[in-house]
């Protein structure tokens, strides 16, 4: 019998996936027994949701942008009639050309394929084979060796070798140890972890179990941000399924290994993604980082040795144990092994989630995998690493995604958010955005991070207001250096990166704001001038939209905009259908 899968990750739901699912339920009532209806997570093509896949004996038709109205025809012609509807296919007309070709899916091996609510489907795709192999055939040392051999580095942003961390935590004295999964995913522009948790929660649980066995921990926490209700629900469901099957709890698979996983919901603080702050938050306190050493591997949760890894790091583990470290290390570059998941957003055609081997160039990711820039605009830069990262200019995008290569540019690999920017993005405004973010999220413990970030934020604010001076640029650099030097945790230490990279690569844009009082990307409102040009045919739309009555003119006659009265709200520009309002 045919199976129909509906993508119901957060992306699918917000595009209307649930309505499509309900329409399919109705169809099933009308034509009972014609197909089996299932939900799945995110396949990565968030830009074409809602996605509906009709599967028959290994053959699959993936329909994109499905509406409830289209369901009738899909069921009639494809499911019952057996002919695909070419125009509605996701791959029709080269729409998704190359999207999957360069991808290697290890972390995302099950995403968009299995029903995340079904442990059976996870098991059917070799799920829990990794932990079975580890528990029954391997010593903890052998497990650690495999992870070391794989070359896997932490995917949460720091890039620390995972096997090394496990080794340290295993070597720490103490009979009680903890595993923590960091699912705080606070970087704005990142959604890899959410998608993995929503689409394949068991892979993360299995990775945590293997880690627990390797380091000798029997208790674990997943710290998940509260903004991810669907991911939390998925995790709860997965944990109770695993418990019912005896895969979590006491004496797992009859091996004497005990393991328990609890969920802690975050309460909305970016800094809680930092490991020592996260631990303080689990303990019920204000999430403020502390000085390291001691590292959590020595003294973590409740003072016990604790191994903390990111969601994506854990999701790699079952595959590595099952296929061996060498198989993972076969992908990638000299110092960056395996694959990396990227969350693609911004001005790129195909927004969504992709997984590529390390070493693929940024340009290839943007143009080959993700179809290039929206509306064929000029590609300007890509932001990597969120508030700790930086903007890499288009000219430098022939470097491969590799920890060292990316670091050389002044950005960082980060957790995997890739925001693509085009000519309509103002780099000074982007710097201001990140400075505002780090200032708001500073926990306030270190003086430079608490007060310095505020003083520093005011600089691009002045510049985008047209009040900047050239001295501001030097001050910006100097203050950034001081914040970096005098902050305890990564938040303050890396907060200068967005500024330093934009200053380095886009200094001309800063200068245009300061000297010419112009915003080349037409973003910074106070620096804009609106005028009405000769294309005006006197339709009066702009005059009616203007909130300050700055536009006057006769019907059918050319209109005039009084600069004195103009508040630069841009409404005239938006309503004009004749390109008669110029923005400069």
């Amino acid at each position, binding site marked *: 019998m045919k199976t129909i899968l509906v993508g119901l990750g957060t992306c699918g739901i917000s595009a209307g996936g649930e309505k499509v699912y309900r329409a399919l339920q109705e169809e099933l009532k009308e034509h009972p027994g014609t197909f089996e209806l299932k939900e799945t997570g995110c396949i990565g093509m968030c830009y074409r949701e809602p996605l509906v896949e009709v599967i028959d004996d290994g053959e699959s038709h993936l329909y994109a942008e499905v509406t409830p109205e289209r369901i009738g025809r899909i069921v009639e012609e494809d499911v019952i009639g057996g002919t695909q509807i070419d125009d509605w296919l996701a791959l029709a007309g080269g729409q998704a050309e190359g999207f999957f070709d360069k991808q290697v899916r290890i972390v995302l091996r099950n995403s968009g394929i299995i029903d995340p609510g079904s442990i059976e489907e996870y098991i059917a795709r070799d799920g829990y084979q990794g932990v079975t192999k580890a528990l029954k055939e391997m010593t903890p040392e052998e497990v650690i060796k495999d992870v070391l051999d794989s070359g896997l580095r932490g995917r949460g942003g720091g890039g620390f070798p995972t096997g090394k961390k496990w080794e340290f935590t295993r070597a720490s004295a103490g009979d009680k140890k903890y595993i923590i999964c960091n699912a705080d995913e606070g970087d704005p522009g990142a*959604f890899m972890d959410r998608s993995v948790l929503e689409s394949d929660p068991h892979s993360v649980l299995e990775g945590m179990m293997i880690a627990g066995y390797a380091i000798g921990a029997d208790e674990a926490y997943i710290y998940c941000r509260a903004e991810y209700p669907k991911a939390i629900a998925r995790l709860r469901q997965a944990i109770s399924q695993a418990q019912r099957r005896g895969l979590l709890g006491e004496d797992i698979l009859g091996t004497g290994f005990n393991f328990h996983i609890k969920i802690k919901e975050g309460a909305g603080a970016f800094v809680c993604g930092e490991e020592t702050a996260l631990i303080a938050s689990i303990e019920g306190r204000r999430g403020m980082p502390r000085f390291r050493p001691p590292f959590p591997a020595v003294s973590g949760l409740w003072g016990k040795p604790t191994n903390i890894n990111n969601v994506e790091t854990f999701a790699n583990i079952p595959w590595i144990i099952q296929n061996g470290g060498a198989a993972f290390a076969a992908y990638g570059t000299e110092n960056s092994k395996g694959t990396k998941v990227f969350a693609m957003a911004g001005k790129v055609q195909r927004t969504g989630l992709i997984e590529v081997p390390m070493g693929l160039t940024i340009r290839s990711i943007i143009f080959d995998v993700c179809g290039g820039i929206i509306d064929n605009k000029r590609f300007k830069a890509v932001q990597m690493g969120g508030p700790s990262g930086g903007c890499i200019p288009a000219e430098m995008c022939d470097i491969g995604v590799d920890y060292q290569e990316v670091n050389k540019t002044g950005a960082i690999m980060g957790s995997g958010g890739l925001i693509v920017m085009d000519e309509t993005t103002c780099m000074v405004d982007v710097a201001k*955005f990140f400075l505002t973010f780090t200032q708001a999220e500073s926990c306030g413990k270190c003086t430079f991070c608490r007060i310095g970030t505020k003083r520093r934020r005011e600089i691009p604010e002045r510049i985008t207001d047209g009040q900047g001076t050239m001295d501001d640029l030097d001050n910006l650099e100097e203050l950034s250096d001081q914040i970096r030097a005098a902050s305890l945790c990564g938040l303050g230490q890396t907060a200068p990166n967005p500024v330093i990279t934009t200053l380095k690569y886009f200094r001309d844009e800063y200068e245009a704001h300061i000297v010419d009082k112009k915003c080349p990307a037409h973003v910074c409102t106070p620096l804009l001038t609106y005028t009405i040009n000769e294309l005006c045919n006197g339709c009066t739309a702009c005059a009616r939209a203007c909130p300050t009555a700055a536009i006057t003119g006769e019907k059918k006659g050319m209109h005039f905009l009084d600069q004195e009265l103009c508040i630069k709200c841009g409404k005239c520009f938006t309503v004009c259908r004749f390109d008669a309002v110029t923005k400069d």
Partner: protein
Amino acid sequence: MAESHEEFKQFNVDLWKFDGHEGALIPLLQSAQDTYGYVPEKAMHYISHVTGIPAAEIYGVVTFYAQFRTRPLGKNIIRVCNGTACHVNGVKMLYDTLQEELGINYEETTDDGLFSLVSVACLGCCSLAPVLTINGEVHGRLNVAKTRKIIREFRTRTKASEQ
């Protein structure tokens, strides 16, 4: 300490799943907020009474985390994402439209108590930018018209359900 105190009788004690474990403070505050829509001062005193954690420390935790509110919000909570992708893809347009429709700024509630507007760091739906959620429901790829339509529909729906 788990016995309930006279002055806290009005609270439904069952809601405070205190299992005596350390680290229960944040879940307790979350459950208080789930119940009342915010964390009332009285709840902080009650939690202090049950757990033995000084009320001042509890207040410190409440004000540290963005999730906790010490004042009630409107019936419908609109969270506007201010992440990088939304910023680049026009959150300003979204905010301007909401401000026009509702007549309020971030962290304010409409006079009729129907809507509160909240700014959040990132909702993690970056591929759908710009994004907002109303009572947790995600709405993505917004433009002026779509935003207006959603708000108006919510207003009608909420008003109808009140009658």
